[in-house]
């Protein structure tokens, strides 16, 4: 009899699972995904053990734009609703003016550059890497501490997609990271060889991201400009405000004001009834540049979604005349800067040439959930 039970119970369990009447019935169905094969990323966290959080997204390699993200969804718990985060996220351009104004390079829009091939040396399995399609690397790995409280601790995990655009003498590593706590980050790293004709000339690499954020779908999104103010010296108080960006505009990042672009959906709230937002936070490396060109005069831009408005250099025309972007389908743009002051570590002159590699220099941003979870994620 006992042996029969031992046989029957597993069979019953399997069949109940298949019929969808077991505990899995409470997991929310996945969004329909318009991509497949290597172009679909389906990553649950933690990678070992029962699911806590989950990302689903599509990616594509596009000449000029390199590695592009489409259709990204996040689920904060197996029983929670899938929340759309991105319709499309890409680096729109990388603008590189040299200090001596010799030339002004548009390293993405100017040429149909493509991603360079990668292999196991770029994307080793020992680092959680899987080469995808010959020029994209997917890495799933530990990301360090998620939190620590004396003897209690939790390490986090993330899935990272990256590819390197071969732009003449430079390689630009485009990296997209999706973390187990719902955070997404984007970085561009400049590396390879200094401009051979002027290897010692200081210059700026300005990647401009176009982030089509659709929080829980695209209708009804609103951007608020998170602003911090200290009333010093008296009274010694501080305040934080969030004025609505009501019309298309370019906005500036002030490090003292902790400016950030907060995207709200008209109806999305967490289980506590608090409005959910995604906060686009600049992660500058030293500073953010300004140049002669009008599109470099601001760090953030907010525009109304139009499928043909894809190019950073055209931004001033996209906001003219400025249309209403409150409770709308919005697109956020952010310009980062890498100030490349050549150093001996970049390379050396050798018999009529320049030999050496500029070690990778990064800049980027993070998109941080605010009141998406009801409580601390990744916490017992």
């Amino acid at each position, binding site marked *: 009899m006992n042996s029969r039970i031992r046989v029957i119970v597993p069979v019953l369990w399997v069949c109940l699972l298949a*019929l969808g009447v077991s505990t899995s019935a409470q997991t929310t169905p996945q969004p329909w995904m318009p991509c497949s094969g290597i172009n679909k990323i389906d990553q649950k966290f933690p990678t070992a053990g029962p699911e806590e959080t989950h990302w689903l997204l599509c990616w594509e390699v596009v000449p000029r734009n390199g590695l592009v993200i489409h259709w990204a969804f996040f689920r904060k718990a197996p029983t929670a609703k899938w929340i759309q985060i991105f319709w499309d996220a890409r680096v729109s351009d990388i603008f590189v003016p040299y200090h001596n104004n010799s030339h002004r390079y548009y390293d993405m829009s100017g040429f149909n550059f493509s991603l360079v091939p990668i292999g196991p040396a770029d994307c080793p399995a020992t680092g959680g890497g899987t080469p995808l399609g010959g020029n994209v690397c997917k890495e799933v790995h530990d990301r360090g501490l998620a939190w620590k409280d004396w003897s209690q601790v939790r390490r986090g995990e993330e899935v990272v997609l990256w590819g390197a655009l071969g732009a003449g003498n430079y390689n630009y590593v485009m990296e997209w990271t999706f973390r187990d706590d719902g955070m997404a980050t984007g970085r561009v790293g400049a590396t390879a060889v200094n401009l051979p004709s002027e*290897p010692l000339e200081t210059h700026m690499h300005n990647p401009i991201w176009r982030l089509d954020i659709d929080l829980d779908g695209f209708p009804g999104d609103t951007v608020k400009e998170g602003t911090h103010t200290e009333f010093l010296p008296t009274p010694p108080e501080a305040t934080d405000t969030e004025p609505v960006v009501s019309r298309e505009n370019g906005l500036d990042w002030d490090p003292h004001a902790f400016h950030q672009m907060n995207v709200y959906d008209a109806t999305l709230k967490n289980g506590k009834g608090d409005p959910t937002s995604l906060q686009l936070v600049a992660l500058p490396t030293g500073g953010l540049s300004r140049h002669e060109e009008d599109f470099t005069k601001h760090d953030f831009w907010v525009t109304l979604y139009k499928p043909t408005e894809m190019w950073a250099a055209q931004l001033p025309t996209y906001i003219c005349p400025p249309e209403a972007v409150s409770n709308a389908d919005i697109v956020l743009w952010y310009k980062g800067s890498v100030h490349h002051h050549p150093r001996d570590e970049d390379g050396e002159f050798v018999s009529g040439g320049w030999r050496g590699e500029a070690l990778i220099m990064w800049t980027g941003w993070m998109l941080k959930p605010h009141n998406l979870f009801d409580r601390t994620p990744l916490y017992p």
Partner: protein
Amino acid sequence: MAHQSIAARSRVYLVFALVTLCPLKLSAQMSFQQRSLQATAPAGQEILPLNPLSAEEKRSAENLAVADSRVIKLLGAGRRQLVSVELFPIKPDAERMAAAAAGTPIALERYAEVIFLRYENEAGVRALVDLSRRNVIEATQITADQVPLTDSDLAEASRLALSNPEVKKALGPEAERFRPPEPETSAESTRERKVDQYIIRGLPIRTLDENDPCWKHRCLQLLFRRGDVYLTRPVVVVDLTAHQVRLEKAGKERDGHEQSH
């Protein structure tokens, strides 16, 4: 004993019923998924709306574009270059997006953006092709600076440069060995070639100086790489608009300082 026997028999019936139902349920799920795929997948090949364009789809988009009367008019009868054919995703309406988010397959149109360069008066032509309905839904002229340079342009610029006596003299006896790179198919092949390669890479250049010959012209700066060394000289700029090759001064030479090699 009899009671135990009945209970045991009931369990067997239950297992039998479940084992019979399981495949039916799974089969139903699979056929639904297959149906949703077939809605967008021609010729038995799985093509979902946001998967990259296949080579066949790119050819089809180009053919549809060049057969369209509006595109023909914009391109004119002169020389042209196909610059790119890429997937052009357009959002569905909010209702369909919400359905997709809830797990329901939706109809999502598949468009291709086709960009041409028209050499006469240098302008671009952009065609938006609906691959499902096999027609061009939009054809517009764009400015030349919105048209990226291509590997074909690099090949042409290299040819012009290598036939220029000044460039040949500056490059020395190895001049003929330089050429644009072959398509790099794998990291391994790139590494294998690196040691003895003589390649030409290009950087498109723009200027704010109206007196610069490259002002509003399609210009490429050529970079000459021998193995793992880039040549600092010559600095070659090819003006593809004017079909001219120009040697520029390198780096600090411009400021009156010789570079210390």
